[in-house]
């Protein structure tokens, strides 16, 4: 039983980890807690609905499933397209709202505006797609039995593998590429980075692109392994914040470990508390981290 909880925890933790990467970067580099970040996950997941609908018209649709997964090659194309569309949405929001407020008002006004943006984005989806849950595919998938009596879906294994690939790619980007190194410089000290010739505006764009792309992937994977609802992202908002705060703002590995820790604690908690209180676990984690180690596990003390 405990093995099953650990497996479930790692799988839901992988989604939280992907979502928390972008939130952690915005907290560190753009210096505000973006309450609308979770809506990027939802929009990513629904962009994929549109992608599959368009693909169905052109021909191909959901594609022939590659055994043992429930999806075919079109899903990989959908991941790329939704990542691009979600990045465009994030950049549009940046120019329309956040960049303007950053110039005019304090950063707490940005936090607050992100609250309003989140409300707008979520209810626009209810308006367009309706409140009922959706699924990418109606095909049934059978669980695999792993040693120890643990049952997982093949799609969930794919999700875990994809998370590892994304994190390795981001690690290489941040440590090897010029843009990645500039990004870390801006996170450390924006003024020093600017006088050293770093184009801070371009770096901010990259933060949005990386954050939105990871969010879109997390959203699509959630839609694939659970279901699509307009509250998809909203229900993950506290876990995302818990992961980002636990890991320490701006830390890639912090966000990933934070995400896994949140997923594991949520799923293991049902052994000691009623399942209905599971959503409160991230909140308790946030309070504990803020009380004992407010800079997070991998953050620097300020």
């Amino acid at each position, binding site marked *: 039983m405990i093995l099953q909880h650990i497996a479930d925890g790692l799988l839901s933790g992988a989604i939280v980890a992907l979502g928390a990467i972008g939130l952690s970067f915005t*907290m560190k580099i753009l210096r*505000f*807690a973006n*309450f609308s970040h979770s809506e990027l996950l939802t929009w990513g997941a629904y962009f994929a609905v549109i992608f599959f609908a368009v693909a169905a018209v052109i021909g191909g649709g959901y594609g022939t499933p590659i055994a043992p997964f429930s999806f075919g090659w079109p899903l990989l194309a959908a991941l790329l397209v939704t990542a691009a569309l979600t990045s465009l949405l994030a950049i549009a929001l940046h120019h329309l*709202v956040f960049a*303007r*407020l950053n110039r*005019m*008002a304090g*950063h*707490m*006004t940005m*936090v*607050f*505006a992100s*609250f*309003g*943006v989140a*409300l*707008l984005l*979520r*209810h*626009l989806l*209810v*308006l367009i797609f*309706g*409140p009922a849950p959706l699924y990418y595919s109606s095909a049934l998938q059978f669980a695999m039995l792993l040693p120890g009596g643990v049952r997982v879906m093949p799609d969930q294994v794919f999700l875990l593998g994809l998370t590892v690939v994304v994190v390795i790619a981001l690690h290489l980007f941040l440590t090897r590429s010029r843009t990645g190194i500039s990004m870390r410089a801006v996170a450390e000290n924006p003024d020093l980075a600017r006088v050293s010739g770093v184009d801070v505006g371009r770096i901010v764009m990259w933060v949005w692109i990386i954050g939105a792309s990871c969010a879109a992937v997390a959203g699509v994977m959630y839609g694939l392994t659970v279901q699509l609802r307009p509250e998809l992202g909203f229900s993950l*908002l*506290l876990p995302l*914040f818990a992961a980002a*705060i636990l890991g320490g703002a701006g830390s890639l590995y912090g966000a990933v470990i934070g995400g896994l820790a949140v997923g594991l604690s949520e799923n293991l908690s049902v052994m000691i508390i*009623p399942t*209905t*209180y599971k*959503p*409160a676990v*991230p*909140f308790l984690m*946030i*309070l504990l981290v*803020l*009380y004992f180690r*407010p800079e997070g596990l991998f953050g620097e003390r*300020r």
Partner: protein
Amino acid sequence: MIGLVAYLVFFLIVALIFAVAVLGLNLQWGFTGLFNAGVAGFLAIGAYTMAILTGPSREAVLGGYELPFAVGLLGAMLASGFAALVIGLITLRLRDEFLAVATFGIAVTIQLVCVNWEYVTGGTLGLISIPNPSRALADGPFAQNLIYLALVAVLAGLVFVGLERIVGAPWGRVLKAVREDETAAASLGKNPVRVRLEAFVLGCMLMGLSGALYVGFIGYVSPFDFLPIVTFQIWTMLIVGGSANNRGAILGALIVWAVWTGSGFVISKLVPPSVQAQSGAMQAVLIGLILVVTLLFRPRGLIGEKIAVSRHARD
């Protein structure tokens, strides 16, 4: 005609109850710069405390103490204040955003407790037949509502006058000093963490009062009255009216509540009942738009903060 007046009385009662919460938020955000993203949670604490203290006794549910209305209001304020104290002690010495995240978290958690802890909250059914003091004083809903309106108006007036006094007093100037420049305030011997905590707890107590007045008026409490959308509504009221101005807080409550109920009425006439869920979403989108547009194009709100100049610096 009497129907319209009766509706106006009803509208004013709810709007003024909201105004009390907006005044509390104004103390936190407007004067002290504290971001409370869990207004609905503190309203819920006040509402449930009121229901438990003053409600009739029932089987298998805590409470039913049938205490007087005033005791209920006081208990609601104390309960919300205590919750604020716990959250504040943990987060107020940290970066500003952490208070936002923690208060958002407590609102979600409180809603969860309201839905699930049936022994205390009655679960999804909520708690019903909470006594309304105006029922004993007059016959007929119109006269009763008029009495309740008078009661709410007096309380909102007292809160308004009290807040005007304290923000004009030295304590209020310390609040603004902490909001503008914490380091400078600390260098003058003020304790920013303590001042923030005081403003946060006091503001949340007003939210508890607002929740209690709401329950006293409608006579029941349900966990679905305290969804995050309520937090948005109250924030929008403050931003539209003008933060750091108590008159603006009350004006915002009246205007935004009028827009909310008005748009709900119009949408319900235009939209077929088969897409009722979408019509609620339309109202929410409207509130979100009003909020973001106000922030971008009139950040002061309708009547913003008055510029205060020290009387020693006039010449």
